[in-house]
């Protein structure tokens, strides 16, 4: 357990810092890096909603996230989206 924690810490520190140790990337590639954040955020949200086999699950959590999507699309403030997502999931579970 401790060895696993140390291994993950070392790997993560190296991954995060790799860009600082390597030479600067050319401008053309750097501009493309602008596509990383939207792609990551969309995929990070999605992988939170799958089961162990990687298939999407339509449960209370997904319902909460769907509400967050609508709110974010309507430009609701950040905190409103997150709290609404959690409250909807909790409310449906309490029913």
């Amino acid at each position, binding site marked *: *357990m401790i060895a*696993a*924690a140390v*291994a*993950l810490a070392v*790997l*993560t*520190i190296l*991954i*995060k*810092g*790799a*860009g*600082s*140790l*390597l030479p*600067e*990337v050319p401008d053309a590639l*750097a*501009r*493309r*890096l*602008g*596509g*990383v*954040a*939207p*792609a*990551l*955020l*969309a*995929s*990070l*949200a*999605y*992988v939170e909603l*799958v089961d162990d*086999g*990687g*298939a999407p699950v339509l449960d*209370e*959590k997904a319902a*909460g*996230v769907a509400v*967050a999507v609508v*709110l*974010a699309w309507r*430009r609701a*403030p*950040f905190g409103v*989206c*997150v709290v*609404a*997502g*959690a*409250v*909807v*999931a*909790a409310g449906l*579970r309490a029913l």
Partner: protein
Amino acid sequence: MPSRRALSAAAPIVAAVGAIGVPYGVLAEASGFPAWLTVLLSMTVFAGSSQFALVSVLGAGGSPAAAVASAALLNTRYLATGTAAARVLPGGRLRRFALAQLVVDESYVLGAAEGTAHEPDADTTIVSGALLYAGWTAGSLVGALFGQVLGDPETVGLDAALPALFVALLFPVLTDRPAVRSALAGLATAVVLTPLAGEGIALAAAAAAGLVAHRG
């Protein structure tokens, strides 16, 4: 110092990340992690999704090697954000290497909002990263120490808060067509690859797909 606008944008994100640290601490405790190790992971790894992955795979009886591999793969996306941040972080290589530890999904997006995606604002990224670091560590500590008192995080919907947080961060970055194309490419990649290759590879491939799809 980051602008007042950047700080007020960061405040609710720091609060949400702190709140999500609590279920991480609870899960780690349930998986048999001592509180000091749970918090030490937050202070050294500081990458929530990979910490969730590590403690849940180990808690489910998975091998340490499999747990570390899946958790580390989740962080390969930071090769891209770290490369973008390295262009603007101050100081020599060592200082930039240290500051790059504060570049996580949320601080990178906040910095990009103040600068550009390939040249995020350094002050905003660093200061919001430091605040997120404090919030995440504090949340982990609360979860690890008081998990049993707090009960199941799912009853208050904390498990939905993390994907809701990503969604709330996503929409503000969809400012032009290339960004929308990248988001759709990343999403499609994740949908197809998650069942075939697992989350870590799917996320790294999604980041790469976003890079390829980003033609302006």
